């Protein structure tokens, strides 16, 4: 077993992990970054649209205050206000910093960073590179990390956080290529492991997204909050079946694409919630004018926050107005020239051409909701990203609070940079204040070794079948619209799966054995799936990414509470705790909490209201 020692170990090499490692290294800490895949392959590469930052290159009217307001309103005010504030204030610097390291964003005519429109953002705000912004960001950070000489452990899955008297002492994992265990002793650990999408069947997430960081942190004593808030991106591919879930960027709508049902109707006009009515166009003409003139027109409802659009699509499909394969149509072909489409959305063009035989410059795309993002996760201090476990930090999707109940598009990449940097900075400061890493208990190491080896030593439940069944439970019972009965059923079935999991077996040896790797990943997936299902059952209201069919209204009482999950005696225990209160000056920027109104599109009543439409 390899036994290595560092000041700071960063687990996860997506945008947040890389940015954290860069900062920790810059602070003089001996830093290692561990990633489950090859370096530079993290899920961040799939981010398409852009990085939200009030750079004010396109709209002088923009400011951090407006960005802050958009973020808070998009999250239905459940965000941690301080994180939203820091994020809005610091993201412009983080974007410009990428340029210092060699990133090349698209440009305005006078040579500055061009910004594009995205859902929920008042102004065109997203710094972008065509539709492959995440790749640009990852590669820039990757090159910077290489330049700084940060140690990288690739294809290494961390399985256990080690603590010494409650504070971080290191972590244990295994190297996929050899199957050997590895022990990393550290004074501070930054978790940047991303989300939990692989618990669902239809998801835009990559195989790494198994909730390892959340499960390990929970077991090490950290709090998880907001686990009920899961974002379904409204536009994933739906056909052919093998590509179902692959993301279709919101940039398609930002650049002029519109959603239609099978009858060609622009149905989003029927689903404008009161909360956004003032700032949303209610006629097609105004919506179309808005692309060119934002001052005198209100934004198109195609670009409402993602939760609204996903619910609207869900309702249209359920009402029988969906497309051939159970989605709706996303049409840019009839609205923009082929040259424009190909230059603005090259990878979308490529993706549909290669995978679906669809030429998006000629035909509409068929799209439907796909699980995309986890708003909930590890509770962190908004300034330092410290968890409740001393020496343990978290940043990016694995951390919670920033996005409240729903994340705006483009706010993820900026989140990674802003809070990745802060996590790295404070982890390094924490490490520098420690004389030596905590002691590693050999009993912990031995127990983890036994747990890792166990699936290989028995012929039991097939991990692929277990994973399939877990995805079925989450997809069918913990989806966009949830009810008490279904959530209770989900919790019961997850319990069954947990019992089956105790007998999981994997054939073959330890060397690059995906069956064995999946068997180990399933432990985390089962833990976070349970946290999601039970948190969702507890929150009896609808808000953002959490919609309850049996509680279709948002409830101001629930709007002041987080659901908190903790590990007690080997079980998940849920409580609610009050949300941090915004100072009055910031509250004034945001505006009022929406009244107890129904979330749109839970029941499809909207179409009838539109001038005797049908």
């Amino acid at each position, binding site marked *: 077993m390899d036994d290595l020692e560092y000041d700071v170990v960063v687990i996860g090499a997506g945008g947040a992990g890389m940015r954290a490692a860069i900062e920790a290294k810059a602070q003089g800490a001996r830093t290692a970054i561990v990633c489950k895949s090859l370096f530079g392959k993290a899920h961040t590469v799939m981010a398409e649209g852009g990085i939200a930052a009030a750079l004010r290159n396109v709209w002088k009217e923009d400011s951090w205050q407006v960005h802050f307001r958009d973020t808070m309103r998009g999250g239905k005010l459940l965000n941690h206000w301080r994180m939203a504030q820091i994020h809005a204030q610091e993201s412009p610097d983080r974007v410009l910093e990428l340029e210092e390291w060699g990133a090349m964003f698209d440009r305005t005519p006078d040579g500055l960073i061009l910004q594009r429109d995205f859902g929920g953002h008042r102004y065109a705000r997203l710094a972008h590179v065509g539709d*492959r912004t995440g790749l640009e960001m990852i590669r820039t950070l990757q090159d910077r990390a290489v330049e700084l000489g940060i140690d990288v452990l690739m294809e290494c899955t961390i399985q256990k956080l080690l603590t010494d008297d409650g504070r971080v002492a290191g972590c244990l994992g295994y190297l996929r290529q050899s199957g050997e265990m590895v022990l990393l002793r550290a004074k501070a650990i930054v978790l940047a492991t991303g989300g939990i999408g692989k618990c669902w069947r239809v998801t835009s997430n990559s195989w790494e997204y198994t909730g390892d960081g959340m499960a390990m942190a929970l077991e090490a004593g950290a709090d998880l909050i907001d686990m009920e808030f899961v974002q379904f991106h409204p536009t994933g591919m739906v056909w052919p079946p093998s590509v179902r879930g692959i993301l279709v960027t919101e940039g398609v709508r930002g650049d002029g694409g519109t959603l239609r049902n099978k009858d060609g109707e622009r149905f989003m006009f029927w689903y404008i919630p009161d909360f956004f009515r003032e700032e949303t166009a209610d006629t097609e003409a105004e919506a179309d004018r808005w692309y060119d003139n934002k001052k005198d027109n209100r934004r198109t409802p195609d670009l409402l926050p993602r939760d609204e659009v996903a619910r609207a699509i869900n309702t249209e499909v359920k009402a029988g107005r969906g497309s051939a394969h159970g989605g709706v149509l996303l049409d840019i072909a009839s609205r923009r020239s082929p040259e424009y489409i190909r230059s603005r959305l090259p990878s979308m063009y490529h993706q549909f051409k290669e995978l679906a035989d669809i030429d998006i410059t000629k035909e509409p795309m068929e799209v439907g909701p796909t699980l995309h993002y986890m708003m909930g996760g590890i509770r962190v201090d908004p300034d330092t990203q410290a968890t409740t476990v001393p020496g343990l930090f978290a940043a990016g999707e694995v951390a919670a609070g920033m996005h409240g109940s729903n994340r705006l598009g483009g706010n993820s990449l900026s989140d990674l940079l802003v809070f990745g940097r802060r996590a790295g900075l404070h982890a390094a400061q924490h490490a520098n204040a420690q004389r030596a890493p905590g002691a590693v208990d050999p009993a912990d190491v031995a127990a983890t070794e036994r747990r890792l080896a166990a699936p290989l030593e028995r012929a039991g439940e097939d991990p692929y079948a277990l994973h399939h069944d877990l995805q079925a439970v989450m997809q069918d019972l913990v989806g966009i619209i949830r009810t008490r009965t279904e959530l209770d059923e989900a919790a019961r079935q997850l319990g069954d799966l947990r019992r089956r999991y105790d007998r999981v077996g994997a054939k073959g040896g330890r060397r690059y054995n995906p069956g064995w790797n999946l068997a180990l990943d399933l432990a985390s997936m089962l833990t976070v799936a349970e946290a999601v299902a039970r948190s969702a059952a507890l929150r009896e209201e609808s808000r953002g990414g959490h919609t309850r069919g049996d509680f279709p209204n948002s409830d101001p009482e629930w709007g002041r509470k987080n659901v908190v999950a903790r590990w007690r005696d080997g079980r998940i225990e849920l409580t609610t705790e009050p949300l941090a209160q915004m100072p009055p000056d910031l509250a004034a920027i945001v505006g009022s909490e929406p009244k107890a109104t129904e979330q749109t599109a839970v029941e499809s009543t909207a179409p009838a209201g539109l001038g005797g439409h049908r």
Partner: protein
Amino acid sequence: MTKAPEAGPREVTMRVWRGEDRASGAFADHRVAVDPGMVILDVLFRVQATSAPDLAVRWNCKAGKCGSCSAEVNGRPRLMCMTRLSSLPLDQPITVAPMATFPLVRDLVTDVSFNYEKAKTIPAFRPAPKDADGTRRMYQEEVERVQEFHKCIECFLCQDVCHVIRDHEENKEAFAGPRFFVRLAALEMHPLDTNDRIELARAKHGLGYCNITKCCTEVCPEDIHITDNAIIPLKERVVTEFYDPLVWAKRRLLGR
């Protein structure tokens, strides 16, 4: 909009390389049921779920964006997630082999650390001072040329197909490979970069080994014109520095 289901057989034979080293490994045939629209990676998942749960396959995003699932399908370097069954003859076995240029880890997975080592040898971006107003200005026309290189997803298929190292192991020391010529070109043509990597490209990264036979360009899943837009322009810059007698004469005459 609605496409008819693809016609064709409902079952295919996957002839997949298995083993931990090239000497003792072998191809194994798996008969699997297939659905319309499937890509090679989907079929391999089905092989894992039905007959070979420990089949080693490296993959990640399954959307052609991360460049993890590189392999050789019917002898051609491809991303398995972007190779549709409908593009292959299904009446014969589909051969899937690991990338030949890199050491084998197991089955379809290779050890690509060669590339990560080469990446460390390239001097980083070093920007010129900012403009007087504190901004950095670059213009779309000059940015676009470099953005083509930034499309690289590091699938290393160009490295795999390049005969300089594929067929001649001994050249690995002195040759960085097409992926890193793309990286060098991106840095060299960056409008704000001040580092000079031309001598390095010639001497250390072995630009001269490339005989521009263009296989890298042929296999690039991102359609980067590696040879025409990265390698040849770099070669021309090397010529200006080292081989052009007119430049040499001009420098002698003008004393610089």
